[in-house]
Each structure stands twice: as structure tokens, then as C-alpha cells.
């Protein structure tokens, strides 16, 4: 067997973008840290500006990085092996995201099934309740905390249900878009991808409306005890992921309009649609565990 039978290793050209990206993350972390301190403690400083500068550099870096990458891909410089690496890399990235949400789901389950009942005196904690939090009754959703903060529980009917439907449909249209791409039907591809994006944006609008409703009319806030904490952190991080997913899909939309992607060259599109399905699955879990149960 001669070595020539094997594909050459993909060795990319030198690129300045990784170190630019590191600088961007540095500014973002420093900026975000200082921004948090300044806004919550009422201090003056440049945290916000540093954060913005970092984000701007990050955007420039991403645009530059992906422009180079797309150019290399369109001129056929990528090996098949690299395509596989990208797909596997994306799957593992999504796995890491799953674990991030798992931490917050874990906090939700712990608070609900262990912390709150214990504070209410269950198991062998009668004295905890009696001495430390007299009069506190365990319940979920926790609308009255041991400290006495009260709030209202968010029902699952109405906006949340509508949002579930919107996201589920968008998952289906994203799938149809992918099928259309596989079959080379460009018009359908554009149509379904466009619909998916609109549904994503619709979801975000409804989500904002839900938050406004929670804050203004229900008194359900991030600070309303552990029910409000888990509610807003889980739905909030999910919303961020929907935002990111929508941005990815919009980029894919413009690339589709430019005639990019084919049956054999579609990693970016696939990655965006995987990400979209992942965001959907997380929402379904959220809907069950945060809203319904």
C-alpha cells in the first residue's frame, strides 16, 4: 500500500484571527466584569465601553474568520476529512451546551424537590422550619419565599403554549429546508429557511412580551426567590440561544441567496440547523419542567 492513496492532511494558511479572538474575549471578560460591578454598585468606569469594544472585535474576528473559511471552502481547499471533523466538532459543541443547561435544570430540580421541602420541614428538618423559618410552607411554584417575597406563578397556557407551537413548527420547516437542499430545490430551500427565521423572530417577540407581562403585571422577577431565578435563568439562556440560532440562520439565508451550499458542501447549513433542533429540544424540556409541572 503506498501512502499516496490517502488524502493529504489539511494544513490551513496562517491566520491572525485566533489571537484577535483571544483579545476580544479578554476585553469582553474584563469589560463584563467591570460593567457588572459598576452598574450594580453604582460606580463609574469604563466597563461598558470595554465590553462593547470586545464585542466589536469579536464580531470583526468572526466575520473575518468565516470569510476566510467560506472562501477556502468555496475554492475547494477543504478535504473530506475536514468536513467530518467540522461535523463531529459541532456535535460535541452541542453536547457541551446540553451540559450547560443541565446545570440549571439540576438547580431547578434540587430547589424544587430538596431545598424547598427541607425549608418547609420535611425529612428530618422539622427544627429548621420551626426555628429558622417559622410559618414557611413548602410549595412549588414557590410564590412565597421563606424570606417573605411573594410573586405569581407563570401558567403554561397562552403565550408559552403559543411559543411551543411556534418553535416546533420552525423545527419542522428547518428540516424541510434541509430536505430541499439535499434535493437541490433552491426555491423551496429559500422559502422554508425564510419561514424558519420568521418563526424564530416571532418566538423572540413573544418571549419579550411574556417577560414584560411577568415583570409589570405578575410581579414575577429575576429576584423573586428561587422560582423566579430558575424561571428567568432557564428561559433567558434559552432565549439567548434562540437569538444566536436565528442569527446563524439569517447568515445561512444570505449564503443561500448567494448560491452557496450544495448536497456535498453544506456543513455550515447543517450546523445551524442542528443547533436549531437542539434549541427546540431544550424548549420542550423547559415547557414541561418549568411551565407545566
Amino acid at each position, binding site marked *: 500500500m503506498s501512502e499516496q492513496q490517502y488524502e493529504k492532511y489539511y494544513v490551513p494558511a496562517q491566520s491572525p484571527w485566533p489571537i484577535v479572538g483571544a483579545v476580544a*474575549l479578554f476585553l469582553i*471578560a474584563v469589560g463584563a466584569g467591570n460593567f457588572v460591578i459598576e452598574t450594580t454598585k453604582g460606580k463609574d468606569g469604563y466597563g461598558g465601553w470595554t465590553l462593547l469594544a470586545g464585542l466589536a472585535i469579536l464580531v470583526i474576528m468572526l466575520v473575518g474568520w468565516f470569510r476566510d473559511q467560506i472562501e477556502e471552502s468555496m475554492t475547494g481547499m477543504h478535504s473530506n476529512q475536514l468536513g467530518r471533523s467540522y461535523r463531529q466538532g459541532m456535535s460535541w459543541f452541542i453536547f457541551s451546551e446540553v451540559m450547560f443547561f443541565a446545570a440549571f435544570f439540576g438547580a431547578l430540580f*434540587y430547589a424544587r424537590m430538596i431545598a424547598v421541602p427541607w425549608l418547609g420541614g420535611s425529612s428530618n428538618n422539622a427544627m429548621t422550619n420551626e426555628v429558622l423559618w417559622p410559618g414557611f410552607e413548602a410549595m412549588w411554584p414557590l410564590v412565597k419565599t421563606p424570606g417573605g417575597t411573594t410573586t405569581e406563578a407563570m401558567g403554561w397556557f397562552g403565550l408559552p403554549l403559543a411559543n411551543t407551537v411556534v418553535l416546533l413548527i420552525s423545527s419542522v420547516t428547518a428540516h424541510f429546508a434541509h430536505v430541499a437542499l439535499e434535493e437541490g430545490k433552491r426555491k423551496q430551500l429559500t422559502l422554508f429557511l425564510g419561514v424558519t427565521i420568521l418563526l424564530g423572530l416571532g418566538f423572540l417577540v413573544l418571549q419579550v412580551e411574556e417577560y414584560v407581562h411577568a415583570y409589570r403585571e405578575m410581579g414575577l422577577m429575576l429576584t423573586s426567590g428561587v422560582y*423566579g431565578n430558575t424561571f428567568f435563568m432557564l428561559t433567558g439562556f434559552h432565549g439567548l440561544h434562540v437569538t444566536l440560532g436565528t442569527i446563524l440562520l439569517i447568515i445561512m439565508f444570505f449564503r443561500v441567496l448567494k448560491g452557496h451550499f450544495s448536497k456535498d458542501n453544506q456543513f455550515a447549513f447543517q450546523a445551524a440547523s442542528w443547533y436549531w433542533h437542539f434549541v427546540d429540544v431544550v424548549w420542550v424540556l423547559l415547557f414541561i419542567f418549568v411551565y407545566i409541572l
Partner: protein
Amino acid sequence: MALPRMNNWSFWILPFAFLILLSSLFLEGGGPNFGWTFYAPLSTTYSNDSTALFVFSVHIMGASSIMGAINVIVTIFNMRAPGMTWMKMPLFVWTWLITAFLLIAVMPVLAGAVTMVLTDKFFGTSFFNAAGGGDPVLFQHIFWFFGHPEVYIMILPAFGIISQIVPTFSRKPLFGYASMVYATASIALLSFIVWAHHMFTTGMPVAAELFFMFATMLISVPTGVKVFNWVATMWRGAITFEIPMLFALAFIVLFTIGGFSGLMLAITPVDFQYHDTYFVVAHFHYVLVTGAVFSIMAAVYYWLPKWCGKMYDLGLAKWHFWCSLISVNVLFFPMHFVGLAGMPRRIPDYALQFADFNKWISIGGFAFGLSQLIFLALLIKACRKQGEPATDRVWEGAEGLEWEIPSPAPYHTFETPPVVK
């Protein structure tokens, strides 16, 4: 690497993230003041403002780790040379694969933990505050769900290194290769269900204490398999005692001591006595310093000639080994006794009866630190390309692709995949 640019990015993030953590020391109010475990409420109610910088630097370090780990996994899954089947892979590669999996699984959980600390401290949430329905113990659960796999992240590559070095200098193939792979995988899987052994004294139902006790003790089985296999590899081998082998032998003996004290700590009622004493400090320094750090030194002495093409100064290396070995035991062994006698950790002062032991611990500590200057001198000499040129194979019994290419390896090593038979 499969994704070289991402690898580059993940590398460059680290110095910047470290810079942020370091610079927080000079902030108003001082740096993070809650130890590496940042237990709530120390890190929430009682911490200073630099906590925000701590949180965000941990975030970008986590991003760096995850990117690095994805790269390792994808490279191993996808870029193995033709003929390099799974069960032919060097054990160092296997341990890294499993380590990288652990990293991807637990770094996001750490990110979640620091995020909750951030919002608890600055945005009025009460994940770790009973007044709002949360629980400080929840912090410990989340933290140790990350923290326990994290210590295996540090030790599994060490197991891989030792599994490369011992066969080389015993001139025998590794005993029980397949069992070594399965043992590594089961250690990794078990690491997800033992975290609360760090919390035996913080309050848990008895059933949970029992579960975490037995699950933890179970880990000693695959770990025992490993130690047995290393010893069996040496059995009737033509052993020579080059520097990497010396460190590997020290590793096997001293890591096993650390493993045994770990087994003692795993027993819940006994841990009630040992918890937060110097016995724990002795335990984890035996597994991490004479374990992980010694294996890194072994690895440097094993591969350094391959990296720079020159054999290092053997005299200095011997001095380094013996000084380190003796001083590290003077440093950590007495900690077992003061710990059993009740000296608590994380308290700068101690009762008078511990003074003599602490004197020896201090002497050992300084001696161990100074011994590393020998290592530094050796490395500087090696970097300046002094010494005898190294052959391709370097060690008589070395096996594996890296020993088939020149020392130092050419730029990019292989342009096309080499075929492994």
C-alpha cells in the same frame, strides 16, 4: 490537530484569562478571597467585587478548555492514521480521549455554577440563599459535580504517560492493554456519580451518604487494575532505570499511597473525623503532586530528547529526581499524622503541639521548591540545544510512531497519513 485554528484560539485565551484572574488581586478590596472551591456564601454574600472578574475569567477559561477538548476528541476520532485501530492506540491517546470527554461534560457545569454565583452576588437571585428558597449546599453539589471529574481530568493523562513509560523501560508490551482501556473508561464514568463524597459532613440523607460512599470505593477497583497492570508489566521485564522510569516508579508507589488514603476518606463515618484536616491535604497532594506532577516530569524526561533533539544533562536529572523524591515526602508525609491528630486545613494558625511536624513540613516544602530550580536549569540547557544529539528512537525499548521520525520532529511531522501495521 483536526481543527488547528480553533486549537490556536483556545491556546491564546489562556494567558489572557490568567491575566484577568491575576489582575483582580490589584483591584479595590483585593482579589477573590474564597479559595479555589468558592463555596457560597463565601463567594456570594461575603466576597468582594472582584468576584465578577473571577467569574468571567473562569468563563473564558472554560471556553478555552471546551474548544481544546473538542479538538482532541475530533482529532482522535477522525484523524487516526490508516491502520491505527482503536485497540492499537497508545494508552496516552486513550487517556486523553477520555479526559477530553470529561472536560466537555463538566466545564459547562462549572460555567453554570459561576453564573449562579454572579447572579446571586450582583443581581439578587437566591440559588444559594435559603431566604429565597435556595440552598448553599446546592452550590456544593453543582461545584463537585464538576470538581470530582476535574481531578480525573488531571490524573487520567498521568495514567497514560505511565502506561507509555513503564513498557519502554521494562522492554515488554503493556500488560493487560484492553483492561487498561476499560479501566480508564470506567473510572471516567464512575466519576460522575461520586461527587458528594466531598460533602459527607455538609448534610445529606443517610441513603445518599451510603450511595456516595460505595460508589467512591468502587473506583478503587479500576484504579487497582491499573496499578496491578503496571507492576505486572515490569514483572520479569529487562528493566533499566533511566530518569523517566525513576519518576514512573516513584509515581506508582506514591500515587498508590495517595489512593489508599483516598479509600480511607471514602468511608463516610471515618471521613467525619478526617474531613477538612491535613489528612485530606496529604491525600490530594500524594495523588496530584507525586501523581500528576511527577508524571508530567516523567513525560518531560521521556519526550524532551524528541522535542529538542538533544539528550538532557543526566547528572542534573538524577539530582532533580532524588532531591524531589526525598523532599516531597518530607513535605507531605507528616501531614498524614498532623491531620489524624486533628490539625484543620485552611486555618493559618495551629495548636502548639503541631509545631515540630510543621517545621519539617516547611523544610520539605522549601527543599521541594528549590529542587525544581535544578529542573529549570536542565530545561534551560536543553532549550539552548546543549548536550549529545539524540537518536530517532532515543530509548532502546521505545515503541510508537513518534520514535520512527527524526529528533526533533520535522515541521508538521507528517504531510500525509503514515500507515500503521
